[in-house]
């Protein structure tokens, strides 16, 4: 297969950046999108040009490193898949694909397609945990957890922190990301002691980072590679009311 790629190139944080057009050819349909970037980079290096920088690591859709806007869709056109899981058979041969980094004020571009998502870490540091020291834990079966709560908590915990929710949200909101953690820990008895402080602190950090607010377009859920549901945002909202209004 052959493709034309229009890729965002930006030297560093302060550079203005622009879309540059490249052609790649002889791509097998089973190749992943990132492997196409590998092929392109190999060509560029051989020509003495700087390869395209992009974040990636596990290449099996779990580490959350990769995240590219492909033809206006976070992680490309497929649902339930991160960029690394996207195979080229998902596109018609000869297609032109515009490839851009995540765009949000709290996600500044570092280089080309690499963005700084450390805002997510800071939100987690603000309260995305249960304050239990090593060694303090009671026996694992001491507190039963209803299966459906554990399952729902797992649905939320499946978040890989890739930032597709922010990237795709018309408001650049991180609500789905924050909700996934708040909801997970609100569903489990282990998280109950700190539920009020947690939701307040994580939301305060989210606002401080400059993310937009949720207007319930549900685009985040649609693009989330792990299908984290916006119901968790509903639960976050309830947790917020519990913490600040009740």
């Amino acid at each position, binding site marked *: 297969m052959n493709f034309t790629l229009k890729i965002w190139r930006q030297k560093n944080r302060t550079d203005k950046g622009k879309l540059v057009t490249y052609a790649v050819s002889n791509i097998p349909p089973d190749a992943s999108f990132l492997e196409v970037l590998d092929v392109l980079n190999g060509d560029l290096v051989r020509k003495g040009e700087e390869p395209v920088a992009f974040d990636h690591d596990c290449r099996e859709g779990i580490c959350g490193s990769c995240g590219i806007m492909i033809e206006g869709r976070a992680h490309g056109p497929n649902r339930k898949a991160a960029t690394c899981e996207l195979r080229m058979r998902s596109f018609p041969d000869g297609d032109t694909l515009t490839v851009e980094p995540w765009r949000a*004020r709290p996600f500044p571009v570092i280089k080309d397609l690499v963005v700084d998502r450390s805002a997510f870490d800071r939100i987690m540091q603000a309260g995305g945990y249960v304050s239990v020291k090593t060694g303090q834990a009671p026996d694992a079966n001491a507190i039963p957890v209803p299966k459906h709560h554990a399952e729902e908590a797992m649905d939320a915990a499946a978040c890989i922190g890739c930032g597709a929710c922010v990237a795709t949200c018309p408001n*650049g909101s991180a609500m789905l990301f924050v909700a996934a953690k708040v909801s997970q820990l609100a569903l489990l008895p282990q998280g109950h002691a700190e539920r009020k402080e947690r939701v307040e602190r994580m939301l305060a950090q989210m606002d401080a980072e400059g993310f937009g*607010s949720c*207007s319930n377009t549900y685009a985040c859920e649609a693009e989330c590679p792990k299908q984290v549901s916006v119901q968790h*945002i509903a*639960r976050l909202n309830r947790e917020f009311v519990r*913490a600040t*209004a009740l």
Partner: protein
Amino acid sequence: MSKPVAFLSSSVGRKMLMALSGLFLCSFLLVHLYINLFLFKQDQGAEFEMYGHFMATYPLIRPLEIGLFAGFLLHGVIGIWLWIMNRRARPVRYSVSRAGDNSTLSSRIMWATGTVVGIFLVIHVNGFFVQSRFITPERPMFEIVREAFTNPWLVAFYLIALAFLAYHLKHGFQSAFQTFGLRYSRYERLIEFVGMLFWLLVPLGFAAMPLYFLWAY
């Protein structure tokens, strides 16, 4: 941080005010529609006039009116504020966007539908409320309505504005429940059903009036 401060200083709190004011305005729409339905009564507006008179003179209505204006104002001001903040969250836009693949148009253009409805409100309030209350209080309301809705241009404007209102409600109604955290699997269907009735029937009800007048008079 005290609870009210914590509530208001969070973007989620502001969203809740947005939802709260929105649902409050929805409740007003229902009352408004209920009274206006008397326009259809074949009594040359007698009962409609009675309600109008009650609204204009009953003392408890004043604070409600003020509350209503405050509601509109709050909804508008927070809406604009959130819109600005949300725009600022993405200073560089995408050169290609296929938002239609992952969200509904109605959810993405609330700012636009809201603005149109806002402009409509100014014209609407000026044409009826201000007219009847302050400029020609002696004139029967029914007369004003009949005069307005026999003007085909104005009727067309109303119909367009109501279409925008419907589109605004289409997303806004169920969205408010999500913001309150109530759009939960158990109630999801119910909220969606009531929401659909609401955004379809209320604007249709309102639209029926100008059409009726245009046709009957």
